[in-house]
C-alpha cells in the first residue's frame, strides 16, 4: 500500500521527436525542456492563427506567453483521451487572448473581418470532414456566401470552440447578437447545402 502511494511517476525520456502527450506528461513533471519543445512546435502556428483574430501583435504575443505558462501549471490536467493536445493548447491560447482583450478593455482590433474564419479542430461532424478539402467543396461555397458578420459568429462559436460570452468579447458585440447571428448563419448554411 505504502509503496503504491509513494511511487513517483517517472516521466518518460523526451526529445524533439516525442509526441505532444509525452511532452505534456514531462511538463507535468516540471521539466522545462519539454515545455520548450512544445513551444517551438506550437507557438508559430498559434501566432499566425491568433493574429487572424486580433490585429495587435503585442496582445497576441502576450496571449501565447500566458498560454504556455498556463500549460506549465495545468499540464497535469491534460488527458490524451479527451482530445488532441494541439486543440487543448489552442483553446487555452484563444481564451487567454480574450481575457487580455477584456483586461485592456479595447474594442477588439479585429483583423479584416472576412479573414477571421477558423475551424474548430475537434468537431466531429459531417461539416468538418468536408471542410478539410474545402476549396472546391460545397460547404466552402456555402461559407463563402455567408456575410462576414455571420461567418465570424460561426467561426468563433462553432469552429474556435468559444462560449457565447467569449465569442461576444472577441467580436466586441453583445451576447444576444452572437446568438442570433449563429442561428441565422446555421439556417443559411442549411439552405445553401440543401
Amino acid at each position, binding site marked *: 500500500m505504502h509503496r503504491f502511494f509513494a511511487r513517483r511517476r517517472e516521466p518518460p525520456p523526451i526529445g524533439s521527436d516525442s509526441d505532444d502527450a509525452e511532452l505534456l506528461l514531462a511538463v507535468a513533471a*516540471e*521539466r*522545462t*525542456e519539454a515545455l520548450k519543445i512544445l513551444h517551438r512546435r506550437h507557438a508559430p502556428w498559434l501566432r499566425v492563427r491568433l493574429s487572424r483574430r486580433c490585429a495587435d501583435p503585442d496582445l497576441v504575443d502576450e496571449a501565447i506567453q500566458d498560454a504556455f505558462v498556463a500549460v506549465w501549471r495545468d499540464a497535469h490536467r491534460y488527458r490524451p483521451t479527451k482530445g488532441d493536445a494541439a486543440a487543448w493548447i489552442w483553446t487555452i491560447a484563444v481564451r487567454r487572448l480574450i481575457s487580455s482583450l477584456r483586461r485592456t478593455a479595447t474594442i477588439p482590433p479585429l483583423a479584416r473581418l472576412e479573414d477571421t474564419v477558423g475551424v474548430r479542430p475537434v468537431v466531429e461532424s459531417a461539416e468538418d470532414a468536408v471542410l478539410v478539402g474545402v476549396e472546391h467543396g460545397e460547404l466552402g461555397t456555402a461559407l463563402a456566401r455567408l456575410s462576414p458578420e455571420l461567418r465570424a459568429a460561426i467561426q468563433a462559436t462553432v469552429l474556435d470552440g468559444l462560449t457565447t460570452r467569449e465569442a461576444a468579447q472577441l467580436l466586441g458585440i453583445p451576447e444576444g447578437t452572437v446568438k442570433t447571428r449563429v442561428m441565422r448563419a446555421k439556417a443559411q448554411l442549411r439552405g445553401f447545402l440543401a
Partner: protein
Amino acid sequence: MTVEVRGLAKRFGRTTVLDNVDLRVGPGVTGLLGPNGAGKTTLLRCLATTLAPDAGEISAFGLDPARHEQRTALRRRLGYLPQDPGFYPHFTVFELLDYVAILKELTDRSRRHREIRRVLAEVELADRARTKVRKLSGGMKQRLALAQTLIADPDLLVLDEPTVGLDPEQRMRFRALASRLGESRTVLLSTHQTEDVAALCERVIVLTAGRVVFDGTPEELAGVAAGRVWISDTPPAASTLFWRTADGRYRTLGECPPSGETVAPAIEDGYLLLLGATSANAGEGAA
C-alpha cells in the same frame, strides 16, 4: 599579474598558519597543492577578502582588500568557492543563486534570472532549479557552490577544493570548465589531487606548514623527483617509500634499491618528495 601577495602572515591563537607567503598569480589556471593544515584554505580566504591577514600585503587587479572601497571593488570581480560552502537548506537551487546574484549587485530581475540559468547550464543543474538545497546530493551541492562562483562572470576565481565530492565524470566536466575559464581569467584552485594539477594547471604552488616550498610548472614539480624514482625486482630497504606494481616489480621513491633502474617521475613523486624533504628533518634528508 592579477594577484600579488607579499609577506602574508596569519596566526590563529598560537598556531602560525601562514608564514611570510609571497605569491604572484597571473591569468590561467594555477593549482595550490598541499597537505591538510598547510594553510591553503587560510591563504585562499585572505585572497577572497573574507579573512584579514595579520601582516603582509595583498593586491589583486591593483586593489587592496584591506581598504574598504577597494575591497568592495575587488569583490565585484571575484568568484569564491569556500571549502565548506554553507547553504540555506530550505531555499531552492534557483532561490539560492538568486540570492547570491542580488549580493553580486544584479538588481534587474530578468537579467539576473538569465544569468542564473546560464550558470545552472554551466554546471548541468538546469533541471534541478526548483529542488530544495537540502535534497541535493553532495556532488550536486558542490556544483551548486561552483555555479554560485560563476555568477556575474568574475575575472578572478578562487576555488577551495572544487573537485571534492565530484564523481569522475563530473570531475572531467569541471576540468573542461576550469580550463575554459582559464583562457581569459585567473583561476586559483586548491586541491589534494595531483591528477587535477597534471590535467589542468599551467602552474602549481606547493604549500606546507604555511610556507611556499615550490612554485613552477607541473613538469618542474615532477622534475623534483628526477633520478629518484626506481623500478626494481627485489624490494628495497623497509625504511623507504615503495609499493608493488601490477607487474610484480617494486617502485621506489628516494634511495636507489639494489639493482634498481630509474624511471620518469610523475607529479606525485615530486610532490611527495617535497613534503618529505620539508617535514622530515630527522630523516636522511634529501640534499
